[in-house]
């Protein structure tokens, strides 16, 4: 939409700054001296508006929102970065050989992809977390597995695009092995668009994790997560909308920033 050749504008830097801020917050959450702990209940200030001791107010149970926001960012960022990375790895491992060598391996991978895609995601996650116990690891694993088909498809599309290119033929003629061609020639060329896609998926995962938390299926209490905070805000939506709005805004800004970066990166590779 904007001219590709323009230098990164204000929005780009704003997005980067916000993400850095969130990253720092989540990293430092364990070390900073917060005045309140995660589940400390302040019965004098139930659903209090921002101001005073509680910089961002409290939720319906009297817990400080700012503290919970900080800790909640951890979950969102960890799941948001690890699950797509897992999907990326699986995508590369299965997608590249499938697109390259074709034949039965491709058909097999495509069928498996279709099966996973057709599988209702929710039930998979529910059963997965019920069986293995709901925790950060299982959620990340489950989401990562669910994301794999998308990555497989994108990897496959990008790899197939390069299959007939001259530099590949040239490498083959000079005697290079297929695997080494894949690793040295194809992989570096597809990483660009793949990373852009990964960023976009990150935004998506943050939202999905929030949705899971909303349903009560994410990492259990007392660990806060942005989605969970939004869910608790639902009960007091009319009287104290800030309880839901603050985590909503935070999540929105983070996902927006990630999307902006992913989009920018994607457009750089789109041209070529």
């Amino acid at each position: 939409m904007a001219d590709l050749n323009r230098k990164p504008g204000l929005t780009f830097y704003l997005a980067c700054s916000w993400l850095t801020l969130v990253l720092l917050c989540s990293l430092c959450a364990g070390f900073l001296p917060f005045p309140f702990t995660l589940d400390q209940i302040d019965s004098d200030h139930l659903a209090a508006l921002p101001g005073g001791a509680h910089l961002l107010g409290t939720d319906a149970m009297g817990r400080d929102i700012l503290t919970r926001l900080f800790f909640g960012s951890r979950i969102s960022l960890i799941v948001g970065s690890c699950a797509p990375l897992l999907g990326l790895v699986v995508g590369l491992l299965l997608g590249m050989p499938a697109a390259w060598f074709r034949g039965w391996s491709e058909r097999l991978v495509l069928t498996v992809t279709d099966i996973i895609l057709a599988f209702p995601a929710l039930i998979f996650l529910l059963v997965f977390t019920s069986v293995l116990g709901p925790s950060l690891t299982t959620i990340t694993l489950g989401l990562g597995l669910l994301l794999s088909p998308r990555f497989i498809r994108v990897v496959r599309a990008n790899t197939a695009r390069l299959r007939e290119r001259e530099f590949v033929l040239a490498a083959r003629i000079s005697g290079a092995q297929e695997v080494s061609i894949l690793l040295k020639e194809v992989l570096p060329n597809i990483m660009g668009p793949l990373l852009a896609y990964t960023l976009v998926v990150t935004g998506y995962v943050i939202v999905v994790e929030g949705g899971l938390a909303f349903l009560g299926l994410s990492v259990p209490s007392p660990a806060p997560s942005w989605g969970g905070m939004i869910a608790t805000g639902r009960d007091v939506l009319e009287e104290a909308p800030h309880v839901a709005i603050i985590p909503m805004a935070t999540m929105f800004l983070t996902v927006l920033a990630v999307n902006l970066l992913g989009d920018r990166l994607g457009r750089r590779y789109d041209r070529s």
Partner: protein
Amino acid sequence: MQLIWRKLLHLLVVLLAVSALTFVMTDRLPADIAAEISGRGATAADLAEVRERLGLNRPVLSRYASWLGGVCKGKLGNSLATELPVTESLRSHLPVTLELLLLSQFFALLLAFPAGIVTAWRAGSRLDRLTGTFAFACASLPNYALAMGLVLLFSLKLKLLPATGYTPLNISLAANLKGFLLPALAISLVEWVILMRVLRSDLIATLKEDYILLARCKGLPAWRILLVHALRPSLFTFITVLGMQAASLIGGAVIIESIFALPGIGRLLVNAIFAQDYPLIQGTVLLITLAYVLINFFVDICYGLLDPRVRRGVENG
């Protein structure tokens, strides 16, 4: 024709695989369904009797096989919780999801179609950039957050629309539509973005073609160039995405259905999972998967109809 049979076979394989996996997975759920049904104070003998009655002692494969047999005869068993036939629950819940699906996709289309066309024609302009920014913002918003925002604004503050609840069509059309307006909006305000982007990008690519240049040289008015010449070849990805979004909404609108208390398929499934109501889980998953796979199948067929050249090339797709 042979291609169609191959796709149908593929469809069947996917269905079987998904239902088999579901069976196996739900089997691994920790809670003891027999204990749930018997309630507290049940003796061991009671539990054993319940298990026997429900056939829980048989091995997984045999249970799956008999379930499959039932499916072929059109029987999906009875819900463990309500004792009603599964098909009954599905039948009562499906229309709600379908209506939500139709309305939300309709709104998404309403937004995406003109936006995609106009921004493609005026690519790079101010309007394009503004629309793009707005679209970006919409896409970054989780639909549950949007739903809550809409409820806050329209139900709680303005008191225009109901916050929750579902009124069947046969009771009152107006009330029914009012109940669906906010949930459909919550879904469509996020989903229109991809549709618009896809349409825009395909249109921009088409507009660079020589025959569009010739159409401009012919002095044809802009609307004619856009709608008659440029649109048709640009609709492929649009339709695919539309189909995929619709397909995933069958079971995927759970959160929205929960927020607005709409008795749809998604909610049915979640409740079934929490209650560990195996037959109901199986039946619902089958329905969801079937819908998903069928819609994708039809989207594939549409391709061939849109472009006479593609009919030959579908094989390579």
